[in-house]
């Protein structure tokens, strides 16, 4: 009898597990999982969509899944999100005139540091 209960318990776990989002193929699902890691939850200080269960994140994930099934490209989906929830909703911001400092300043600082050590040695 006990073994039957254990058996039933395992069976019930399997029968209640289901996908939250539906995709035509595995490639789409991989794209979805990558996208929700790259997009920030609009309500969280620092957390990706995949880490968030906030209502707005749930909505956004459903929307992204929809857009993937409509054959939208990753860039179109990212544009959709960033035009609505701001540039900072992308963990990897686009390279444009507003983000030059963000992308190139590490190299500038590296150069300055190298110059500093070069002159100090002299």
């Amino acid at each position: 009898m006990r073994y039957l209960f254990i058996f039933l318990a395992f069976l019930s776990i399997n029968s209640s597990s289901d996908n939250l989002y539906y995709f035509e193929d595995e490639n789409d699902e991989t794209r979805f999982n990558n996208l929700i890691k790259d997009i920030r939850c609009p309500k969280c200080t620092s957390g990706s969509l995949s880490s968030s269960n906030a209502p707005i994140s749930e909505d956004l994930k459903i929307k992204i899944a929809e857009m993937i099934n409509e054959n939208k490209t990753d860039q179109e989906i990212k544009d959709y999100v960033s035009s609505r929830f701001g540039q900072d909703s992308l963990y990897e911001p686009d390279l444009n005139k507003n983000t030059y400092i963000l992308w190139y300043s590490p190299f500038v600082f590296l150069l300055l540091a190298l110059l500093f050590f070069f002159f100090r040695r002299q």
Partner: protein
Amino acid sequence: MNILLKLIVLIVPAIFIFLFFIILTNEDVYPGADYDQFELPDFELKDLDDSKRISIDFIEGDYVLNVWASWCITCIVEHPYLMNLSKTGVPVIGLNYKDEKQDAIVWLKKYGNPYQTILHDYKGNLALDLGVTGAPETFLINNGEIVAHYQGEVNDRIWNDVFMPIIKDRKMF
């Protein structure tokens, strides 16, 4: 050369202190304000009062779109200001966000209704397309184009500092 290097130790922190002083003491910054302009997205929602279908062409001209819900505490705080605003002749359209119809109607009976029309966005589809993250949020719409978006409570100060310059600039209402 050596003196210059030693001075850097003083100059660099001084620059940072100066920058932080300017940025942090600037009182004109409204973190909830967003002036991105974009077309009002397509929608078809039901009217909260009579369940008539409302599409994008239903509302014309300039208006204020206020996102609210009966579960939203800040909306109660904001509410008297919206009542005054609609009394002065500014058309205010409500977007009831993720709310049960009955709760919303009871809430309006209790506090009063400042809205000309209320769209019932039960699933939050239009709100998501607008970039709404919660309630209350307020949009300024100029001939089908969104010209300002504010996240949070609208009061006299926000209205005058965030919305008024754009209203004057575009000669709205």
